[in-house]
C-alpha cells in the first residue's frame, strides 16, 4: 500500500519554450524520439509503487490527455489506482495568475480526498530517474517538514535558466530558493520535486494563495524555509530541465552518449510510454547512420549523424541530418542537409536546400511547416 500519492505539476507562466510550446505543454514534448517528457515523472511514480497520481494540465491539454489516457500503459491498476487529470480554470498559459498554487487551490477537494498520508510533487517538464520511496524514507527518517530534490550542475550559466536554485547550509537545510540568473556555473538546481505530508501541502497552498495570488510553491517554501525544517535531497545521474529550446536540445544531445542513455533506461526501472503500433524501421541500401537514436516506422535512405529521429520520419536519398532532432512523421526530401535543428512533427522539408545553424543556437522548424 503506497504511503504517498503523486502530483505531476505543470510549468508555470514564467517558463515558455519557444516554438515547441506553441503546440503542446512541455510534458507532451517528444523526448528521445519514443517518449514524451511526462512519461518520466509518471514512470518514476509507478515504479515507486505510487498508484494514485494527479496530473495538472494547463493550456492545450489535448495531446497530454490523449497520451496519458487511462494510464494502463504506466502499469497502474485501473481500479485500485488512478491517474487523474486536473485542470486549472484559468488556462491562459501566459497569465501571471496561472501558476501551480492556483491550480492546486482550484482542485483542493480532490487533494483532500486522497487517502495517502504523504504527497510527492514532481514536474512534468524535467527528466530524471528517482525512486521516490527512497526520497520518502529519507524525508520520514530526517524528521523534516519538507524535503526537496536538487541536482548539482556545472553549466548553470548557459542552461537551467528558467529554474530555481537552492542555497543549502551544512546540514542540507534549505536556506533560500532563488531564480537561477546564470551568474555562476556551479549551482544546486531545484528539481521542483517535493515530499511532505498531505496536510503540510494543503497548508502551503492555502497560505500562498492567501498571501498573494501570484505566489508559487517554491515562493512559499522560500518564505517559510527559515521557520520550517526544509531539507534537500541530492539527486545523482542524468538530469534535464526542458524549460527552454536550448535546454531541450542540449539535454537530448547529451543522451547520444549510449552509456548515459542506457543508465537512464534500466530494465528494473522501465520508462513506460504509449505505444503507437508502428512497425520496425526500414534502412535502405544507401542508408548511413551513426551515433543516433532512431524510432520505429522510419524509412531511411540518407545519412544520419548524431541525431534523434522520431517515429515514422522519412529521410530521403542524399539527405544529411547532423546534430538534429527530427520529430515524428516529418519528411525530409532528397538531397537536403539539416544541421543543428529541431524539426517539429509533420513538417515537410521539400524545397529548402540547407537548414544549418550552430550548435549553440539550434534552429526550430514549425509543426506541419512545409519548407
Amino acid at each position, binding site marked *: 500500500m503506497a504511503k504517498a500519492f503523486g502530483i505531476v505539476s505543470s510549468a508555470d507562466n514564467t517558463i515558455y519554450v519557444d516554438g515547441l510550446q506553441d503546440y503542446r505543454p512541455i510534458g507532451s514534448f517528444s523526448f528521445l524520439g519514443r517518449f514524451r517528457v511526462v512519461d518520466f515523472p509518471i514512470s518514476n511514480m509507478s515504479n515507486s509503487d505510487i498508484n494514485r497520481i494527479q496530473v495538472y494540465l494547463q493550456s492545450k491539454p489535448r495531446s497530454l490527455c490523449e497520451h496519458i489516457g487511462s494510464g494502463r500503459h504506466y502499469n497502474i491498476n485501473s481500479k485500485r489506482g488512478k491517474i487523474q487529470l486536473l485542470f486549472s480554470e484559468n488556462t491562459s498559459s501566459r497569465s501571471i495568475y496561472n501558476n501551480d498554487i492556483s491550480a492546486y487551490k482550484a482542485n483542493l477537494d480532490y487533494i483532500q480526498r486522497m487517502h495517502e498520508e504523504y504527497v510527492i510533487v514532481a514536474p512534468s517538464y524535467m527528466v530524471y530517474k528517482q525512486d521516490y520511496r527512497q526520497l520518502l524514507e529519507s524525508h520520514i527518517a530526517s524528521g523534516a517538514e519538507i524535503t526537496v530534490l536538487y541536482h548539482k550542475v556545472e553549466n548553470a550559466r548557459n542552461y537551467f535558466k528558467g529554474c530555481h536554485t537552492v542555497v543549502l547550509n551544512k546540514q542540507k537545510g534549505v536556506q533560500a530558493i532563488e531564480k537561477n540568473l546564470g551568474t555562476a556555473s556551479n549551482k544546486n538546481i531545484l528539481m521542483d520535486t517535493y515530499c511532505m505530508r498531505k496536510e503540510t501541502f494543503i497548508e502551503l497552498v492555502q497560505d500562498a494563495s492567501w498571501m498573494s495570488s501570484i505566489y508559487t510553491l517554491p515562493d512559499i517554501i522560500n518564505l517559510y524555509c527559515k521557520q520550517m525544517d526544509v531539507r534537500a535531497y541530492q539527486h545523482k545521474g542524468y538530469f534535464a530541465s526542458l524549460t527552454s529550446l536550448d535546454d531541450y536540445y542540449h539535454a537530448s544531445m547529451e543522451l547520444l552518449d549510449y552509456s548515459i542513455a542506457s543508465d537512464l533506461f534500466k530494465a528494473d526501472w522501465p520508462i513506460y510510454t504509449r505505444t503507437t503500433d508502428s*512497425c*520496425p524501421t526500414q*534502412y*535502405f541500401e544507401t542508408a548511413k547512420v551513426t551515433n543516433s537514436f532512431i524510432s*520505429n516506422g522510419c524509412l531511411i535512405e540518407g545519412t544520419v549523424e548524431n541525431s534523434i529521429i522520431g517515429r515514422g520520419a522519412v529521410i530521403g536519398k542524399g539527405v544529411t541530418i547532423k546534430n538534429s532532432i527530427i520529430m515524428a512523421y516529418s519528411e525530409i526530401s532528397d538531397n537536403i542537409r539539416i544541421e543543428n535543428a529541431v524539426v517539429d512533427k509533420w513538417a515537410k522539408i521539400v524545397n529548402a536546400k540547407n537548414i544549418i545553424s550552430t550548435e549553440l543556437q539550434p534552429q526550430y522548424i514549425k509543426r506541419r511547416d512545409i519548407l
Partner: protein
Amino acid sequence: MSQNEMLAMILAGGRGSRLKDLTTKVAKPAVYYGGKYRIIDFPLSNCANSGIDVVGVLTQYESVLLNSYVAQDGRWGLDSKDSGVYVLTPREKADEGLDVYRGTADAISQNIDFIDAYNPEYLLILSGDHIYKMNYAKMLAYHKEMNADATIAVRGVPMKEASRFGIMNTDGKGRIIEFEEKPAKPKSNLASMGIYIFSWKLLRKMLVEDMKNPESDHDFGKDIIPRMLNEHRGLFAYEFSGYWKDVGTIDSLWEANMDLLDPKNELNLNDSSWLIYTEDISTLPQYIGKEAKVKKAYITQGVQVEGSVSNSVLFTNAVVKKGAKVIDSVLMPGAIVEEGAVVTRALVAENVKVGKKAKVGSKTSENITLVAKNVKGGNK
C-alpha cells in the same frame, strides 16, 4: 459489423515441429516474425481491424506462453466492454473425462457452449500460424451476398505447385463444386487458405452430428467440407490476392523475414490503415553506434548496433557489438552477436549469444542455419 454478428475462432494448436528448437517451448503461432511481432498477431490484428469483438483461441500443446500472450487482449484493442480474446483448452466436463482436441472440427465442437453464449450469426475459422492481412468483414459481405452456407478463402498458387495444396474447383461463379486434397492432376490453382466463414446454425448442426460419427476424423478439410459438398450446400470460394505465407520451416520463416527488406514488399507493415498490433515492450529506441554500418535492414526498438548489419532483420533488444557482422540473417529478440563475430545466412534464436569472433552460418549452405544455443567465442 454488429456486436457479435461474427465470432472468430483461431486454431492455434500447431506444434510446428518442423520449426525445431524454436517450438520446444512455444507453440508455432507464438513464434516471432518481422522484427517485433509474433505470428498470431496477424490473425488477431486482422480480427480487430475487421470489427470482430470476440475471438476464441484454441490451444492444447505446451502453450503457457501462447496462452498468456493472447490473454492480454488489450494488445489488439480487444479489451473493450464486450470484447475479449479467450483461450480455449480442452476441459473436463460434468459427465466426461478430460479429452484432447481430436481434430480441427472437434476443437470447435468441444466449444459449442462457448460459441452459443454469444449467439453469433456467423463463425469465422482461422489458422493461428499464417502471415497475411485480410479484411474479414469484406469476406463476410461476400458470404452474405452469395447467400452462402460456407465461404472458403482461396488464393491462386502456381499450377505446378497446386498438387501440394487442398484445391477448390469452382463453377466459374465462385461456387465450389469439388474439393481435392493434394490432387495429382489439379483442375484449378485455387488453394484453400484454411479460412472459413460458416453460417453458425448449419455448422452447429453438422458438428453435433460429426461428433457422434465414429468414422470421422473430425476435421474441416477431411470431413465437414466434403460432407457439405455432398449435401449440395452453398460453398463459395473467396479469392484473396495479397501477401500470404505459412511459415512451416526455418527456411520459410527466414524467407518471410527477408521479404520485409524489400521496401515495396507486399505485406507493407507500414500501412497506417491496417496496423498489426503486438506486445508493447519498454525499451530505448534503436541506437546505431558511432562506428556502425547499417544498410538494407529492418530494425526495431531496443536494438543496439555497434558493428555492421546488412540485409538482415533485427528483433527487439538484439545487440550487434563492435566489429561484429550480421549478413543475410535474422536476430530474434535479445540475441547478442559479440565483438568480431560473424553471422551469415542464419537465424539466431531468442536470447542466444554468439560469442566473440565466432562464425555461424554460411553463404552457401543448402539450408538456413538455426542458432538455437549459445555459441562459444571463436579463436582469432
